[in-house]
């Protein structure tokens, strides 16, 4: 899921640790790993991993995503989404496939698209 050579991108991963609060617009090509707080927008060609302690308020566009924490905002992916047992999503989800672990909470619409190759940055 977090292969460095994914889509030929050489950009490094961005990691936001548990003790850090970030505000703003994240625009990148690499993977994004968040275990802290984020507020703003997230747009990347890479994959997203939101840890158990993450608290995200953002409009999100990306490749694949694995969510274990709380997300407030719409999620639009060109790949798949995995929601862990403690995940809480308030917003609409659009992805090519979805996996929801028992205990995850979703408050919004889920749209499963056909293998879209849509560029999240377009």
């Amino acid at each position, binding site marked *: 899921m977090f292969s460095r050579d994914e889509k030929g*991108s*050489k*950009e*490094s*991963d*961005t*990691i*936001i*640790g*548990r*003790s*850090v*609060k*970030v*505000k*703003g*617009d*994240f*625009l990148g*090509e690499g993977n994004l790993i968040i*275990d*802290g707080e984020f507020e*703003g927008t997230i747009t990347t060609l890479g994959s997203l991993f939101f840890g158990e302690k993450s608290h995200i308020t953002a409009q999100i566009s990306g490749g694949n995503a694995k969510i274990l924490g709380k997300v407030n905002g719409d999620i639009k992916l060109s790949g798949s989404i995995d929601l862990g047992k403690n995940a809480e999503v308030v917003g609409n989800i659009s992805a090519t496939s979805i996996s929801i672990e028992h205990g995850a909470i979703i408050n919004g619409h889920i749209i499963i698209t056909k293998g879209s190759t849509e560029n999240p940055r377009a």
Partner: protein
Amino acid sequence: MYVYIYDQIINSKNYQSLTAKIETRLTDLGLNGKIVRLNPMHNLERTIKDEVKSNCTIVLVGNDSLINSAFGILKGLDVTIGIIPIGKNGNNLARTYGINSEMEACNILAARKIAHLDLGVANNSVFLNHLSIKSSKSFIESADNLTLETNSPSIITIKCLSSTEDYGASISNDSHRLQLTINSSIKNHYLSKPTTSTTSIISSKFLINGNFSATLDDCITLSAPITVSVLKNGAKIIIGRYRL
């Protein structure tokens, strides 16, 4: 033309035999040039301004403190810089460039493998290796409109992601950018030891504010606020084969 700038510490008798050995080796390699010894009457800035001419090679003979100060003056100039580390301690910068001892440094000068490296600029000072901050509360703004806030004891480190084209390696998208890393310790009520969290962000510029002081290459101290940017290809350095 080679100009050798000797740090003040080398004026001590302890280093006489070592400098004689270095000078003999440099003569054997055909690298002899002008020697300028720094002393309270002959300061670094004046010496460099007097000696620098286009296409000359300035060789810094000393430790990290001399090298960092000299790069602050030489930044952006069309001068090739060589390094001869002296002594066993305080030579982390030389080691970063694959130069581990005085005699190895002479051979490296002869091999003349030149790298165009980025320099980090913090306010008006430069750093070659890293900038580090110990802080319990800090605010960071990146050029990409991201604002970061830390509220726990953290060590913030900024490094240049220099290009490596001189080694035939592929050029990363991250060349000419800075990598900011925050290592924080978080108290956990269930564990006696605090856990650590890491944050890593890449950008071309950072503004850091808070109540702290920063150290550049472990030798210069700056107080907040600090603006950190990159000087692209700010230095032409003669480096060793096995640069870190």
